[in-house]
Every structure is written in C-alpha cells, then in structure tokens.
C-alpha cells in the first residue's frame, strides 16, 4: 500500500479545483491509498467537498484559526506531522503548493518532484524542465518518502460521488509567529477562472494600453472566456499579474486558446502546450506563435478581433 497525502488548497470555504486533479494524479500511483488533509480555521465545507472526490479514502481535518489565511511557514510543520506514514505527499502546482510543498519536503527530509505530469511507477515520474523544452523521466529511491507538486494542467479532475469519512485530527506542533498575513488584493470578477476555464482569450504587448485591453475583454465576454496575458502585457500594466500565462505564470489547458498580439516566446508557449486548439492573431506572419497555432490569422488585431466578435 502506498499512502498518499494530498494537501487541500482552499479559500473562502471552497475547495480549489486543483485538488481533484491531484487526486487524479494520485490514483495513477500503484496501490495508492489516498487521504486529503484540510488545514483550515473551520473547514467543514471544504472537508465535505474533498470527501466527495472519488478515490479519496479519508479526509483529515485540522481546525485551527492560525490556518487561515494560509501561510506556508504555519502549515508546513502540521503537514510534516500528518505525513507520517505517507509514501507520497502531494500538493497542486499552484502558488499555494509551490510555496508550501518544498518547505514540507525540507522538514521531512524528502526530495521534491515539481510539476509531475505523469506517474510511470511508484518510483518513476515525468516532469517538464527547461520551460518544457525537455521532459525528464526521474526516479526516486524505492521506499523513500517523496514530496511532489502535481502539474494540474496534465490531469482531468477526478469525478465526485464517493463519500469518504472525515476525521477531525489534532496536530500537536509548535507554530511559528514570525510570519504574519497582512492583506490580499484579489480582483473579483464574474469571469471564469483562468486555470480552469474551457476558453481563454489572451492579449500581449500589442494591445498597447490597459484601455485597449477592452478589445480582449469584449471578445472574452462574448465567448464566456477567461482572460489571460503575456508577461510583456503584465509588465506594462495592461493586465494584472494573476493573468500571466507561461513558464513562470499559469500553465493552462483550455479547449480553446486565443493568443492575440502575442509573439509566442518559448516562455509563453510553455503555458499553453496542453491547450486543445490554439488560435493566433498577429500582424507578423513570421511570428513564432504561428508555429504552434491550429488557426492563424495574419493582420491587425484592432480590426480583426472586433470582426471575429461580430461573426460569433
């Protein structure tokens, strides 16, 4: 039996969609017995949601006011304690998981595999390196505890419908007070979430201003799509940082991706490799984005995008 402990990401009483994808990854580990740890202030709803994911055998709920908002330095010692007896400790490759899991790994003395995209056996895994210009097959020593983050774009969420028992557990560890949450500014929008959206419309440097980004918003509204952006567009302040798609932003796998006024730098392409269909609009016929686009449209975005919108 390989016990797998998955750390649940959640906010505002809602389980993050990435958790069901971690479960999907965990079910591909041979002989997996999957547990989900919910560290929260209350966590009742989150635990219930986690218990409903098929493949989960047990949910461990740790209630502590210090657990929200989540701080890696506070969660890590608790996860380390809970991971006792687990062969694998998994978290999503979101900023939450990327922040937390290496801290857990160091506390338990385990190696970490970042962005696991495939499980080949209980000791062999595949992960992207060099901005996904190479895929590495890596092997960990048998019988050694392993911490990993799951590249969520590589997995379909495990289905719901399997009620697992929820066990409230007390974790007796000292929590540091040297890290304090101050605030979070999250853009609230009615738009679909970039990481889980079926359609994404991204804009690049070519948009030229935050004002002009409305062209992107308008098409996104029309298609019920999420909005994304290249690094250049974010750096220039046309779009907020959480919309950056790419090697160092979000890795996404929508059914339909529009790259508008984006050249297609390797770091951007890393983020959209798993998109089913890519559409590119760019005035430069030589732009590298056309190498990967399923449909390319050469011309001025300010003319073409409104035209596309009108035809939909």
């Amino acid at each position, binding site marked *: 039996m390989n016990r797998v402990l998955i750390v649940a990401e959640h906010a505002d009483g809602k389980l993050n969609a990435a958790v069901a994808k971690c479960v999907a990854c965990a079910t591909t580990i041979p002989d997996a017995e999957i547990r989900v740890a919910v560290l929260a202030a209350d966590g009742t709803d989150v635990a219930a949601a986690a218990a409903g994911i098929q493949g989960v055998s047990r949910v461990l709920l740790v209630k502590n006011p210090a657990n929200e908002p989540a701080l*890696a330095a506070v969660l*890590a010692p608790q996860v380390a304690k809970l991971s006792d007896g687990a062969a694998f400790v998994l978290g999503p490759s*979101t*900023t*939450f998981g990327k922040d*937390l899991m*290496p*801290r857990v*790994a*160091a*506390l338990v003395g385990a*190696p*970490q*595999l*970042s962005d696991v995209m495939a499980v080949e056996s209980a000791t062999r895994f595949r992960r*992207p*390196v*060099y*901005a996904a*210009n*190479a*895929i590495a*097959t890596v*092997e*960990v020593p048998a019988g*050694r505890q392993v911490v990993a983050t799951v590249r969520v774009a590589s997995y379909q969420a495990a289905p719901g419908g399997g009620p697992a028992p929820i066990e409230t557990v007390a974790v007796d560890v000292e929590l*540091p007070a*040297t*890290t*304090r*949450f*101050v*605030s*979070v*500014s*999250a853009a609230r929008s009615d738009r679909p979430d970039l990481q889980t959206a079926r359609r994404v419309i991204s804009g690049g440097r070519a948009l030229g201003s935050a004002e002009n980004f409305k062209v992107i918003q308008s098409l996104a509204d029309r*298609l019920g799509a999420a909005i994304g952006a290249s690094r250049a567009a974010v*750096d220039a302040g046309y779009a*907020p*940082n*959480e919309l950056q798609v790419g*090697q*160092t932003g*979000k890795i996404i796998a929508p059914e*339909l991706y529009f790259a508008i006024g984006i050249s297609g730098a*390797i770091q951007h392409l890393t983020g959209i*490799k798993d998109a089913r*269909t*890519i*559409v590119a609009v760019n005035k430069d016929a030589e732009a590298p984005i*056309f*190498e*990967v686009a*399923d*449909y*390319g*449209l050469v011309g001025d975005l300010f003319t073409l995008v409104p*035209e*596309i919108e009108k*035809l939909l």
Partner: protein
Amino acid sequence: MRHKHGVDGMRRILVGIKRVIDFNVRVRVRPDGSGVVTEGVKMSANPFDSIALEEALRLRERGEADEVVAVSIGPNESQQQLRDALAMGADRAILVKSDAGLEPPAVARVLLELARRESPRLVLLGKQAIDDDCNQTGQMLAALWDRPQATFASKIEIKGDVARVTREVDAGLETIEVDLPAVCTTDLRLNEPRYIKLPDIMKAKKKPLDVVELSSLGVDAAPLVKVVKFEPPPQRQKGVIVKDAAELVAALKQKGLV
C-alpha cells in the same frame, strides 16, 4: 544565539546566483537523451537571480544593508556569473565549487551552511531556476534555517527587523510580514536589473571572489533523484493560416469550439 546583524555587525544580504542556459536559447535535448545540448550555448545568471541581486543592491542603496554577497554553487565557470554580479554592484562573491549539479535540497543545505557563517539578515533567491524549473530552494532553505519565507516577491520593504513583502499569487497580490532574518524569492515584477557598465567590470576584478570546494563545507550533497532520460516534448502540429475572420469563425463553429 542568532546574531541580529551578522557575526561582525554587518547587515548582510546573501544572493543566490545560478549559472544556467541563457533564457533566449532554444534548448535542445541530446539525441541520446542523456541531457540537453550545452556545447557552444550561451550561459547566464538565472534571470530571477539577477532580479534578486538588483533588489539587494537597492536595499543597500536605501540603507537597509551594509553588504551584498553573491553566492553560486556550480562549476568553476560560474565565476563568470559571479564576476557579473560583482560588476553589477555586489561587494563580494563566494563560489562553492561542484561539477555535479546539485538538487535543491543540497543547494539549500549549502546555503544554510553559508547562512550560519555569514549571518545574513536576508537571503534573496530567485523563485525558480529556469533550467530545472524546480521552484524549491528558497522554501527548503527557510525550513532548514527555521526562518520565515516570502516567496514570489514583487515588492519588498524593510522596516527595522521586519520585511513587508508583496507576493504574486494565483489570486492576485498578497502582502505578508516576516521577521528577519528571512528568505525571500523573487518574481518578475520586483524590479528591472541594471545594466553593467564597462568601468564596473574593471572595478569588479578587484573585488573578492572566494572559491571553496563543496567537500570542504561538510554538507551532505548526495543526489536523491536520478534522471533516467530526457526527451523532447511532443511537437504540436502546425496548423493552417486562414484568410479572414469569417473563415476562422466558420472553422471554429464547424469544430464545435464556439
């Protein structure tokens, strides 16, 4: 006892500088799958590490640090990147020489050993090395050092012995406060690194660059993860160029995508 201001009263910032394949290079897997092609390939400091160094220099310029020390763990050639760091403005540099590439836990242990020796008030690292794409080292160092971490920083303000850090997270921007000493990792929007000026390159030649053998540090650097092989990623099929918006929309409709 932890020294608040370094062993010698210096308020020190340690900056990690990893030598990696330049971000502009299109990396190729060797035909035998043993690694990626490095012959004749441009090497540079990891871009996030240049951002870390720039931030350390700005903190020193704002009077929040007395000394900036650039550290690299890697082959002898990493001296180039450390010389660049000195030219940018670091006060001194340390190369921990190792021909074998180290995994993040081992790098973290080396940095821990240096942190013990140097007692920095801040260790600034990149959020991720663009070769292994691990995004682990800073968090691991913070855990081993039993100090706070502030990852993916887009703004760092120091007031007294506290750093207020704005972090780029999936939801937007998060602000936390950490007591120093702490580990901070940089995101892209933290700053834009300065260019190196020619006279600075000359000056940098006189700055101290200590080379120490990894084996002399007494750190366990044994690898835990074996890379079995590298493969090129599956290539996407090149698609079609449509002549106008109408043809595009028709194609998308036909495929049921819109």
